[in-house]
């Protein structure tokens, strides 16, 4: 209390003083010298960029003039009486008084503030604060900087080197000499394709006397398909790629098509801007190809929570937040996710702007489509072509086919029963945790947890009198696997049993059906093995009658051949007598044809369904497929050729004379490839209504927002439609200040261990200062100028003298520059997790270089995939032999059970986007490379290979094995050490009772054939030597 009285006393004094000053000559106060220090000292503790309670920032002129959330200007120039700042520092209300802690303002300080405001509140623009971050280097588009001068040009190879050398000059440091050729080719191999060179490749390069020998190696490696594998993995971290859903169920998902797309895109050097556009909006490109649609899998790599009891919308929103984070870190190099809950604390990104970007991405189905490999596409085209050929034949041989078809169509139009759609209430507790989302057309979409067995109960009172039949429609939906209509992994469904109770006057009666008819009636077929429920019962699918036969083993199903499986189906249940009026109906929709493990993809549920009833007597299922039925009402002359072909393709099946041709076509369809699935985006017809979410809570929508971009970044192209494609083009515009910088910085990081900006996920105002700002900009501009070509960027870097330096560094240099930010020597650090395994496979000769396709399951202990380690039992169908020796890129990645080796060596598990891995060194890593069976496989293979192909003498062989691991030849003392080990181990395994094959053979009962003269003891000793070599620091290090 006393301070306030004192201050008020002071105010009186000041007023007196002020009144003494000349009225025309307002007191002049220097903002920079007198006001700024005062604000800093007494106000910025709360009201600066870091924390601004009530939204007021006194470090920004605009904010001070505008006021905080209250809307009351803190500073009203020339009117201290209206300035909230003055009111607060003089308030007698304790809750209002500022500053809230510490000493009150002194009279002199108060006087300064007041005089400054009344003097016009002069606030120079240079000190107005950086509300839009315009002064932050990364928020201005990069421009080509001048090439700096250097003291000694002899060392230079490219302009890139000038930036590095000029910095070294300033630091008084000298660059290192070029590394030797052996080191260089190994470095290039690890960097460009993620694999070490073979001794033959080393020799070829070392002996190549041509002046462009180095460039030839670079070109060869950049042209290798393994280039895409190595650099694809880098992007897959940013794309948070994994092969499972995450969260509790963590079910396998099939998204390797996206992984292969990334690898292929890099291999064909798809320009990086295009690379991003296709991933953000490939589906919206004109005549989008399958590949371009697959590319949108990038945005779909988010986790999906399908544990029981989830609100699917909550986790769709979480996936949206994840996409925002991924786009922020991976594409923009900005931490935009900070603005999910509030304005960004450091960057000039408002929460509203966050949701404006969000609005670009928020208008899509979570689609799951069928995709085909190139070979499958060919087979599919063959099937379609042959079917058309048969149909063409029919037409040719039947000149009046059109008249006959028209006549049929006229007849088929008429006489359809009228169906009244029912909108029942779902008994939530009956669904086993699955959510039935009601849609506008009266259908329900199955979402969330997918139990493998349940009977959904739905209740409705109908006013329709005299109902004669019920219809259950199964509809397609973009959110379902392969578009549905079922929810199984194939988009199919099985209806075990359909029953209806009618309650009339308090009496409940199970209704009786005269028959069930469906538009599709598969023959009785054993249930697919993926739905095995371990009951041992013979479970089957078959025709419509199976849904009302009272048997739990039989079901009506929609499964057909893969080319025609995913279309709408219907089944009609005809009552044996009309329904009593005013009945309350309870439908029991039993879906028990799933498998034993509900934590795997084993459900066989209806995906999107709709119930209806009719009063038409004798109503049956409409055999005309929905897509044909839809065309029939259209006047005949309005049909397109596609319409006609569609109608024909059904009509022909009704023509008795064509039975043979129809049978032939049915046979042809069986050859249709199965294809794979891929999660992609598919734009909804109607955009969603996007709101700012208060505190990022999806249950607290605030104001509606339109799509837009942050004011501090480049503007949207004028007049462009506000869709994802426009957003993608905006993000990859040449004026986008961070996109190219973020990309080149990540590439630099991969080469040198640290980016030019160390915080590669954040180029914003909290980012670390670039070590070489001009070099970063130069690279970004060169990158764009050279057509956003990644391969050109790699060439630019690896041909520099900077890159080619030897990595040896003196203790003084390491002490001065521990992370080699100044680049006075070449990079030396451990390779990434995937390469730890790939290098061993490659050195041993076991590596299977096969590219692409479904992810692999190399041997791992089974317990990892079983409770109580895993939440649910997980499938891990072990790939033995060569398939298990493929590159680590292809290892199946469960998010909740990360691959132990990859995790231990710092590979992220895909829970969220990662653009900068850690690089740890732990005892658990040592246990992996020592004891993980795959490393022993490699040691055995290397031993056998060495004995077979490594030369005649032990020394030859030691050099050979050493070179397969390190590329270089061992030094004399290293060779001597290895010789000693070899001799000792030969002795050990020659001793009586020794069991060399236990170590040296994959299966000791079936030892491999050794080259002539070699003994099992030697094989074992060489296995020990190989194991030593594979465990050396140098083997898993890029030097």
């Amino acid at each position, binding site marked *: 209390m006393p301070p306030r009285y004192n201050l008020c006393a002071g105010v009186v004094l000041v007023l007196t003083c002020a009144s003494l000053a000349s009225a025309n000559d307002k007191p002049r106060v220097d903002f920079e010298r007198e006001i700024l220090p005062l604000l800093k000292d007494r106000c910025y503790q709360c009201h600066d960029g870091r924390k601004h309670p009530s939204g007021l920032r006194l470090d920004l002129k605009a904010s001070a003039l505008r006021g905080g959330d209250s809307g009351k200007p803190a500073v009203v120039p020339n009117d201290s009486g209206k300035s909230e700042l003055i009111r607060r520092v003089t308030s007698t209300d304790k809750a209002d008084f500022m500053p809230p802690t510490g000493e009150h303002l002194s009279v002199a300080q108060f006087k300064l503030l007041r005089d400054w405001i009344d003097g016009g509140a002069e606030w120079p623009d240079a000190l107005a604060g950086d509300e839009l971050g315009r002064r932050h280097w990364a928020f201005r588009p990069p421009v080509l900087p001048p090439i700096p001068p250097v003291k000694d040009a002899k060392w230079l190879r490219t302009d890139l080197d000038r930036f590095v050398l000029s910095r070294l000059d300033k630091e008084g440091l000298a660059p290192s000499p070029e590394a030797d050729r052996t080191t260089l080719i190994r470095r290039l191999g690890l960097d460009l394709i993620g694999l070490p060179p073979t001794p033959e490749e080393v020799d070829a390069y070392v002996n190549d006397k041509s002046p462009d020998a180095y460039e030839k190696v670079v070109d060869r490696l950049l042209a290798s398909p393994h280039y895409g594998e190595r650099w694809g993995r880098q992007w897959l971290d940013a794309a948070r790629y994994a092969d499972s859903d995450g969260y509790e169920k963590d079910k396998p998902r099939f998204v390797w098509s996206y992984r292969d797309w990334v690898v292929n895109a890099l291999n064909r050097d798809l320009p990086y801007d295009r690379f991003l556009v296709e991933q953000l909006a490939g589906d919206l490109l004109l005549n989008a190809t399958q590949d371009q649609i697959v590319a949108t899998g990038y945005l779909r790599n988010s986790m999906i929570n399908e544990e029981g009891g989830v609100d699917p919308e909550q986790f769709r929103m979480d996936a949206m937040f994840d996409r925002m984070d991924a786009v922020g870190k991976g594409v923009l190099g900005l931490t935009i996710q900070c603005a999910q809950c509030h304005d960004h604390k450091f960057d000039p990104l408002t929460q509203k702007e966050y949701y404006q970007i969000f609005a670009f991405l928020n208008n899509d189905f979570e689609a799951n489509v069928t995709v085909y490999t190139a070979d499958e596409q060919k087979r599919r085209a063959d099937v379609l072509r042959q079917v058309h050929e048969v149909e063409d034949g029919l037409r040719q041989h039947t000149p009046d086919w059109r008249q006959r078809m028209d006549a049929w169509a006229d007849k088929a139009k008429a006489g359809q029963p009228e169906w009244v759609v029912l909108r029942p209430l779902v008994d939530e507790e009956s669904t086993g945790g699955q959510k039935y989302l009601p849609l506008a057309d009266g259908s329900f979409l199955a979402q969330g947890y997918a139990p493998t067995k349940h009977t959904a109960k739905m209740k409705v009172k109908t006013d329709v009198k005299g109902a004669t039949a019920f219809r259950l429609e199964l509809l397609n939906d973009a959110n379902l696997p392969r578009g549905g209509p079922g929810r199984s992994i194939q988009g199919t469904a099985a209806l075990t049993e359909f029953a209806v109770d009618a309650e009339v006057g308090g009496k409940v009666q199970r209704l009786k059906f005269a028959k069930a008819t469906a538009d599709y009636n598969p023959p009785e077929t054993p249930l697919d093995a993926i739905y095995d429920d371990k009951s041992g019962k013979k479970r089957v699918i078959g025709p419509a009658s199976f849904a009302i036969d009272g048997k739990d083993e039989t079901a009506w199903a929609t499964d057909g051949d893969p080319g025609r499986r995913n279309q709408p189906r219907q089944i009609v249940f005809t009552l044996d007598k009309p329904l009593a009026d005013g009945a309350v109906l309870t439908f029991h929709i039993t879906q028990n044809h799933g498998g034993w493990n509900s934590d795997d993809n084993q459900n066989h549920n209806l995906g999107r369904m709709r119930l209806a009833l009719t009063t038409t007597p004798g109503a049956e299922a409409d055999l005309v497929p929905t897509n044909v039925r839809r065309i029939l009402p259209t006047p005949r002359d309005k049909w397109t050729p596609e319409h006609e072909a569609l109608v024909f393709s059904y009509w022909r099946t009704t023509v008795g004379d064509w039975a043979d041709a129809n049978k032939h076509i049915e046979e042809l369809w069986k050859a249709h490839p199965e294809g794979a699935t891929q999660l992609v985006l598919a734009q909804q017809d109607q955009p969603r209504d996007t709101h700012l979410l208060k505190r990022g809570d999806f249950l607290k929508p605030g104001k509606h927002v339109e799509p837009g971009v942050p004011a501090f970044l480049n503007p949207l192209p004028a007049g462009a439609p506000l869709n994802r494609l426009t957003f993608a083009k905006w993000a990859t515009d040449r004026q986008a200040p961070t996109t190219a910088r973020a990309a080149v910085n990540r590439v630099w990081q991969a080469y040198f261990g640290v980016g030019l900006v160390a915080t590669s996920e954040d180029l914003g105002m909290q980012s670390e200062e670039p070590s070489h700002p001009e070099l970063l900009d130069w690279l970004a501009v060169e990158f764009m100028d050279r057509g956003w070509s990644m391969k050109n960027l790699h060439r630019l870097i690896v041909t520099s003298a900077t890159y080619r330096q030897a990595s040896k*560094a003196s203790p003084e240099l390491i002490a001065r520059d521990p992370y080699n930010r100044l680049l006075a020597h070449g990079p030396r650090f451990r390779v990434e997790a995937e390469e730890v395994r790939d290098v061993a496979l490659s050195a041993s000769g076991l590596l299977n270089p096969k590219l692409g396709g479904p992810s692999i399951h190399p041997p791992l202990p089974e317990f990892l995939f079983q409770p109580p380690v895993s939440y649910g039992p997980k499938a891990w169908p072990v790939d033995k032999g060569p398939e298990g020796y493929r590159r680590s890129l292809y290892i199946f990645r469960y998010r909740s059970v990360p691959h*132990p080796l990859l995790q231990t060596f710092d590979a*992220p598990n895909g829970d969220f986007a990662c653009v900068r891995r850690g690089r740890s060194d732990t005892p658990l890593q040592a246990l992996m490379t020592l004891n993980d069976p795959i490393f022993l496989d490699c040691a055995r293979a290397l031993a056998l290979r060495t004995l077979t192909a490594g030369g005649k003498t032990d020394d030859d062989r030691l050099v050979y094995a050493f070179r397969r691991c390190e590329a270089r030849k061992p030094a004399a003392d290293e060779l001597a050490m290895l010789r000693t080990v070899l001799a000792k181990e030969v002795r050990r395994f020659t001793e009586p009772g020794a069991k060399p094959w236990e170590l040296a053979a994959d299966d000791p009962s079936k030892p491999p054939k050794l080259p002539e003269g070699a003994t099992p003891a030697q094989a074992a000793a060489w296995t020990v030597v190989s194991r030593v070599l594979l465990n050396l620091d140098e083997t898993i290090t890029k030097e």
Partner: protein
Amino acid sequence: MNCQAPFLRGQDPTQITRRWFFRDCAVGLGGIALASLLQQEGRAEDASGAPDGDPLAPKKPHFPAKAKRVVYLFMAGAPSHLELFDYKPQLAKFDGTLPPPELLQGYRAAFINPNSKLLGPKFKFAKYGKCGAELSELLPGLAGVADDIAIVKSMVTDAFNHAPAQILMNTGSTQFGRPSFGSWTTYGLGSESRDLPGFVVLNSGKKGPSGGNSNFGSGFLPTVYNGVPFRGSGEPVLYLSNPRGVDDGVQRDTLDAVKALNQKRLDVVGDPEIATRINSFEMAYRMQASAPDLVDLAKEPQSVLDMYGAEPGKPSFANNCLLARRLLERGVRFVQLFHEAWDQHGNLTNDLKKNCHDTDRASSALVKDLKQRGLLEDTIVLWGGEFGRTPMVQGGGNDGRDHHPNAFTYWMAGGGIKPGLTLGQSDEFGFNTVEDRVHVHDLHATLLHLLGFDHTRLTFRFQGRDFRLTDVHGKVVEKLLA
């Protein structure tokens, strides 16, 4: 989750990276530690003598701590507070009636229609110990240590689905990617063991935790702070055993050769990371030597096995509790047991009987055992799940409860926690908390306080921001402190 290089967290890199230690101290550690393995039993020197820079070296917290280590018995699936700890006579009285509508305003349930009938408690309660703690008849073991534990009946969380709620309870956020409590603890305190990981995880029960490895992941902290899963049978740590055909002689020869060649390379290229690698291999070897002995419960006297209900060679929660004590004794900083068994949407009565039979004796034995060894005073024992259960019934059989985040119970003991305390209250139906509400963040803040940390200052710089376990929340619950 291994995202972010382990430097640049706003500190001088020389303070945090191992390489500096090894540059200055050469490579000797492996040999020295190996030699002293038997005397040391895996305990490193006290923090004052620890080298700077080793990320797992013992470190001093912000202020003198009451607790030095933690054992967290995580009851995944969410046990029913209404059957075990929080007796509600009114719930019994109104069994079968609908809850007051005002209670359900804005309430979301996972499976049930919230407007479902109330379900009275299934078991009898009585008061135990000098403190008179009220506990269910299902917990006779815990009743025996009632005066050693504190019970918090006013826990609150934000999430009501298993995976996000478990992630919140273990990492302070429902979003994946944050470091777990155990990781923060080892990041802050390091480890006192030289041959065991600082943070060990043990699993039992029907399933693994819903959030998978992220429940004990290091998030954006360096990977060395990841929880390391141990197994009570077979190989205690993955790939701990020598592979087939490699006996100890071969292994030692291999390691000696690797070390000699690495040393040679270190001399040539001068990269101190090589020294770190040499040390890692030696530590791995020491772990190989000590871990099998550690997990060999047959070394325990029968009386101790009986006390826990442990049976060597037969994996169980009881075995894991005993294993936890052995780990703590050897200087492991944080041991977390996951026992996923508590999701009683149905079969509440029988499942709870079974679960309590499986866990009550061992949990209480752990408290007793730590106490008799003088370890309880600086060890926090923490017991609880990710949320509570609804006072409303789930299922037609009147024998299930749904997920409930508004009120649930935790118990804890040792490490500066006030023994014999019952803190907080829920309302007459056990639906909302009405007194001394303790949010997950408050619990974390309190536990960190006991470990010697100001929870607002135990931070890590990531993506331009200082992150902490309690995010921007959390208040130390003073009443819980002894």
